């Protein structure tokens, strides 16, 4: 009689696999909780953009001379150069924070003049907005138009810079829309945009906003405020004005 085959002992689960299974189950539970909280709490949040009119900011610039891309007295001893992209949300933060105080405290009294050094680094919407902003300089309202564009800034590269938006904002700040369109398509605007982009390259501008200070006809030097509050800009201007 052949020997009876022995029954194999019951297989014990591999403890390493068991541990991984426990880890996976715990992880799945935590991830499920996190995702549910994120979707319920954050998903209900407002991710839209404001659509306030830029016209309200026009008063800020009333009576201040505008020469091309510059704002302020021609003979102001200090020039503050702002490399910015109209699509950049951080440039918008600067515009909403310290910018108005700089205009009131330094530009209006003739101590500092600002130069809009617009560059288009983020995409097609940046390019279109920049062309129209530069074109607005021909009508002496670049700064009002830039403020209006920032106030209505949309999500990056979603096609938010439409003709309708540009026309509405142009009319808000008192620009001649037909002339603006013509100027925006001009070779001169192309030349200006290219010149500023080349200047940014030469100065090693890493992104936007990037600020430079120029004293008289001296060489511009980069400055980096620790925040966009006016308190961070005051020492920069005090230093430049004392030289």
């Amino acid at each position: 009689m052949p020997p009876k085959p022995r029954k194999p002992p019951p297989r014990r689960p591999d403890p390493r696999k068991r541990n991984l299974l426990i880890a996976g189950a715990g992880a799945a539970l935590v991830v499920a909780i996190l995702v549910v909280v994120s979707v319920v709490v954050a998903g209900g949040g407002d991710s839209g953009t404001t659509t306030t009119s830029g016209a309200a900011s026009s008063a800020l610039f009333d009576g201040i001379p505008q020469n091309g891309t510059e704002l302020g007295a021609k003979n102001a001893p200090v020039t503050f150069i702002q490399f910015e992209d109209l699509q950049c949300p951080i440039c918008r933060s600067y515009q909403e924070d310290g910018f108005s105080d700089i205009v009131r405290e330094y530009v209006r009294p003739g101590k500092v003049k600002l130069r809009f050094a617009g560059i288009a680094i983020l995409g097609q919407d940046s390019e279109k907005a920049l062309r129209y902003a530069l074109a607005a300089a021909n009508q002496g309202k670049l700064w009002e138009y830039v403020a209006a564009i920032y106030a209505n800034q949309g999500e990056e590269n979603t096609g938010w810079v439409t003709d309708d938006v540009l026309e509405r904002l142009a009319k808000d700040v008192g620009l001649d829309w037909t002339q603006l369109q013509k100027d925006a398509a001009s070779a001169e605007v192309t030349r200006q945009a290219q010149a500023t982009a080349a200047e940014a390259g030469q100065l090693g501008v890493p992104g936007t906003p990037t600020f430079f200070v120029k004293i008289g006809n001296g060489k511009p030097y980069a400055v980096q405020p620790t925040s966009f509050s006016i308190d961070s800009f005051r020492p920069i201007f005090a230093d430049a004005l004392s030289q």
Partner: protein
Amino acid sequence: MSDRALRIAIAVVAVAGVAVAGYLTYVHYQPDALICTSHGGCETVQKSSYAELAGIPVALLGLLAWSAVLVLVAWDSELARTLVAAVALGAAGFAIYLVTLQAFVIDAWCIWCMVNDLVLVPLLAILAIWRTLRTPEA
């Protein structure tokens, strides 16, 4: 690869994770430290409503998770090994969710978040699973 080598590799990845998550936590509280670069996305992701979970910055959760991995990898026990695997798998699952959000909901890419979600977290998961399943040394 020996258990010691795996522990060192996990520790190195965790240190990189602490650095990236620490930077993202810093810019969450100091957004002015950011500039927009041609990479795009920049502050859009950080300012989106998904950047916080019940008031806690997602970047801070990441920083805590990476710190926990560092502590656990220093503690050589089976429980610590299992916990590292749990954190790694949880991080991998949540990273998939965060990448999906950036691609389809926020519609913007945060370069440092991508480094964390697509490089460091998958690396951690692979190393942690490998360490959990490997045959113990005699």
